[in-house]
């Protein structure tokens, strides 16, 4: 259950951004997760409120976008879908591939509530 650690890191990062921009609250946090990041989206969603309690992100909506697993073949050059434990080329079957999508664990955007200066 390392998702709590990840949620805490996320909240810390978002709090930093909120402070940097002088935001009062965070509306939305969008995170892109690939299946190969080793973080389970559902568990992160459950852990998030615990980590966010008492912070400016407390009432934020956490939007978790799942990235597909895609590999590019070093042999034939094709880019195809793959699964977490079969990262082989969907075109020629070779295992010499590079993962081009699926290992992301990225904070994409945050929506901040920034009070206007001087009213």
């Amino acid at each position, binding site marked *: 259950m390392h998702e709590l650690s990840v949620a805490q*890191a996320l909240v810390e990062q978002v709090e930093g951004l909120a402070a940097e*921009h002088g935001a009062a609250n965070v509306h939305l946090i969008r995170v892109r997760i690939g299946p*190969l990041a080793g973080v389970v989206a559902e568990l992160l969603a459950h852990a998030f409120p615990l980590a966010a309690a008492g912070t400016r992100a407390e009432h934020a909506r956490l939007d978790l976008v799942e990235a597909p697993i895609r590999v590019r073949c070093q042999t034939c050059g094709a880019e195809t879908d793959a699964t977490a*434990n079969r990262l082989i080329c969907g075109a020629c079957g070779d*295992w010499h591939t*590079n993962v081009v999508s699926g290992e*992301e664990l990225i904070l994409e955007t945050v929506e901040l509530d920034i009070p206007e200066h001087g009213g």
Partner: protein
Amino acid sequence: MCDTCGCNVTPGNRKFAYKPVEPGATTISVLQGLLKKNDDQAEHNRAHFDARGILTINLMSSPGSGKTALLEATIAALKSQLKIAVIEGDLETENDADRIRAQGVPAYQIVTGTACHLDAHMVHDALHHMDLDGIDILFVENVGNLVCPASFDLGQHLNIALLSVTEGDDKPAKYPVMFRGADAVLITKTDLLAVLDDFDPAKAERHVRELANPAPILRLSARKGEGMTAWLAWLFGQLAEQRRRVQAGETQRPVIQPEGARLHTELA
């Protein structure tokens, strides 16, 4: 504003449109790794190792696959030629650090309490309790766990995943995140293959290849001393490579660091 004029937004494509942003709300594009703080600390640790010419290796596996026994045998074989230090990670007890110290090398035990993995900050704290002068290789024995340790960079140069023959040859298919991030896979306790008819090392290797991982797969028994020569030769090769990198002012991240994610971030 899109939320007032309704430009081109239909019930069919509404979910693809930008969400209406409340007055005063500002959308910030971030595109940073979620574990940025850990990753920054890991880079700091790695710079620390490189400045001292230390090769740092992270050992990961399920509990009981023989990480500590491998370290005992490795230290016994190398301690006359190399200076080795070990960081041990466990939920409780000093037992593993005691076993390493009995081999006559420095060991620091991180007791994680309930945490299922080590992170870069824990390793950094441990480094402050260790004398790293003259150390050639620092081993970090991660918490026995095939899941969580795979997601945290500690500042190591290389990851090693152990798979003991009592665990089943399909473990790489079941725990792909761990095994695709290994720079070397060690099939351990091979002396038991004689009494186990259901572990096929070739099948384990095939599962690792299906993770697009070209890492060397070594078979050994630390207790019986089988296969140790190839493992020690691999270590010497990696140490030479680290010394070359240090000379050239280069460094190396373990393959676990998602290159694709970084690429994606840069392109986005």
